[in-house]
């Protein structure tokens, strides 16, 4: 028999690419931040959606771009539903708190734990929303599993982490990722997570004793945090599986240092500019009102107060643009650039499955101010 076919070739790993234009993203977030201020924050639903649409639709895997099909109106509705749920809960919290405090002062503290559980539930459901809005090659990702089961796991692992003074955190993260990924699907391709807590622990354990020093020695803290995040990203990406598709990240541990320092640098620059601006304006007011003016006149000056508020708003706007530009976009791009996909042929003919999830989780997460991935 004549063997003419070559050895079964393994296709080389595929890098993931990002095609988005940075200036375009900057314009998007700058405009969005401005609109957010004008709309006293209500524009956040649209801005978040626009940011995700930009990032998703410029992320190419095996030559095909992903797509984010979520819309701001869904987030707004999710927020309104969350309000309807959270308001009675806050009220009940208050009434139960009064009863608990009557038995023992500050006994209502454990009730805050209930909000933690609720926050974890919200994180799971928000992830489910985002995943069901993520489409690639005309097939959506989706999630099953239960938000409450996840919240229970997260809380118990959290307690364990407290008992072990934080050393159990890598295992907590691995367990929670396993739960999330096992319930994540791309069409009929089930996800899984192969990252081990021990691998993560090996890389980060020495940060733990250094953290108290970093709190005192300021310049150390961003390095430690950026290192931690880089290790976490690499570990997380490298653990992700969908059926036979495997992800692999080669993100270097020092890959994110400059991003965090850029954010810090810009924040300092913006704050200094704000300080100078206020000082100059105060000086001008002082000069106009003459030498007889007391420092008190300055403290009660209405124009100065108004200018301070406006300056503060501009500062907040600047912060939000800077953090989105570096910590949303640039970080995303860098993580993607480090990612390889193996076995993509397993995703070549996947049947569509799964239903859309509501944005309730996003709404609750917004209401409780929790965030998660």
């Amino acid at each position, binding site marked *: 028999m004549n063997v003419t076919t070559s050895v079964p070739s393994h296709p080389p790993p595929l890098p993931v690419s990002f*095609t*988005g*234009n940075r200036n375009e993203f900057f314009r998007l977030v700058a405009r969005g931040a401005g*609109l*957010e*201020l*004008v*709309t*006293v*924050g*209500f*524009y*956040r639903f*649209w801005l978040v959606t626009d940011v995700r649409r930009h990032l*998703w*639709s410029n992320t*190419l895997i095996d030559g*095909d*771009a992903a*797509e*984010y*099909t979520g819309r701001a109106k869904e987030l707004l509705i999710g927020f309104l539903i969350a*309000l309807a749920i959270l*308001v009675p809960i806050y009220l009940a919290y*208050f009434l139960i708190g*009064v009863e608990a*405090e*009557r038995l*023992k*002062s*500050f006994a209502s503290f454990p009730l805050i734990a209930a909000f933690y559980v609720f926050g974890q539930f919200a994180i799971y459901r928000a992830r489910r929303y985002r995943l069901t809005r993520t*489409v*690639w*090659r*005309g*097939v*959506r990702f989706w999630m099953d599993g239960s938000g409450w089961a996840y919240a229970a796991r997260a809380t118990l692992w959290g307690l364990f982490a407290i008992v072990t003074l934080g050393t159990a955190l890598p295992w907590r993260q691995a367990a929670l990722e396993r739960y999330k990924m096992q319930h994540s699907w791309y*069409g009929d391709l089930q996800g899984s997570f192969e990252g081990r807590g021990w691998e993560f622990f090996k890389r980060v354990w020495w940060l733990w004793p250094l953290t108290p020093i970093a709190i005192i020695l300021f310049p150390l803290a961003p390095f430690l945090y950026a290192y931690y995040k880089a290790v976490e990203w690499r570990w997380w990406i490298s653990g992700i599986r969908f059926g036979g598709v495997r992800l692999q990240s080669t993100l270097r541990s020092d890959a994110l240092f400059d991003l965090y320092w850029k954010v810090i640098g810009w924040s300092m620059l913006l704050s200094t500019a704000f300080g100078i601006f206020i000082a100059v304006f105060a000086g001008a007011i002082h000069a106009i009102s003459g030498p007889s003016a*007391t420092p*008190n006149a300055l*403290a*009660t000056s209405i124009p100065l*107060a108004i200018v301070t*508020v406006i300056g*503060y*708003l501009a*500062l*907040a*706007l600047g*912060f*939000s643009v800077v*953090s989105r530009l570096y910590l949303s976009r640039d970080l995303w791009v860098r993580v993607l650039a480090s990612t390889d996909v193996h076995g993509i042929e397993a*995703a*070549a*003919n*996947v*049947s*569509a499955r799964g239903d859309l999830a509501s944005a309730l989780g996003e709404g609750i997460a*917004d209401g409780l*101010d929790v965030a998660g991935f």
Partner: protein
Amino acid sequence: MAIDPVIYFDGMSSRRRAAALVFADMLEIDAGDGAATRWAYADIRRADSPSGTLRVSCLTAPPLARLEIRDAAVAAELTSRCLGIDENYPSRRGVATIVGWSVAAAVSIIGVVFFGVPLAADRLAPLVPESFERRLGDVAERQVKLLFGDKVCSNPAGQQAFAKLVNALREPAGLDPSVQSAVLSTPIPNAFALPGGKVFLFDGLLAKAQNPDEIAGVLAHELGHLKHRDNMRGLIYNGGTSFLIGLLFGDITGSSALIFASRTLVTASHSREAEANADSFAINVMQRLGRSPKPMGELLFRVTGKEGGGLSILSGHPLTEDRLARMSREDQPAKGPPLLTPEEWQALKLICVTGSKV
């Protein structure tokens, strides 16, 4: 990988098919599996895509079916035929609508903060059952005692004098005998009322006082808070405004400072009003007893000194000098008998001395 000019995903599977397009009366997509898929031009909508690729969906096709065109000429040809292609994309009008409604929402929330919540607090506070208010008071009392040390001054002679003073004030104030009052041994010069009819006086204030009328005025002021149920009103008011203002700014970066600042401004103004009302109440009670309210103002002034200068709109109290001026205007020669005899006053001043040793 060769670049296919047109790729079709049918929305049922992730299979990537090179397709040929025919621009007939409908768009015909031939993905090489027999019958062509036909999309009406009017139903075709743009979907998000990277630059250089036109990606469209169709209203009547499976929702995730996508046609991707990487050839600029073909893309232009298709776009020119699909008039509704950008209908799903937010236009300038769409953004204006968002801004308009957000501003309307903000205005109505601010309106509710300034007019609705104070009204609700006034109307709801009397409806809160007294038993619940007393529970709140118990909770607050426990916390106060935990924070300031559970040192109730219990010198018998001093307690007698204190009870006499409180009772003398309670009757013209129109409060029933359920009012609980105590002196706590702490050097902080202060006094306050808690929900459910509790008044606490700190020894530190007694130490600064020079005559019974000074303390009487302060106690009358606190009884005013009880009478007006200011604690309950404050609770409802603060809860309501915090919630509404939190609703406004959501999670803009740095919004917590914004929320804190606006809340401070709004609640301080409400609190100033309540304080001014309690002052009026104290003036009224003192005058009914034939005593002058001026000593109270003098005591406050002794404690705080001149306050002017800081941002008065941030303060929860009217400025002390303004309060003193107001009480001085209401000054009148004492017509009624002294509220305490000199011996009783001495005993009250020493209420914590032996008590704390027991």
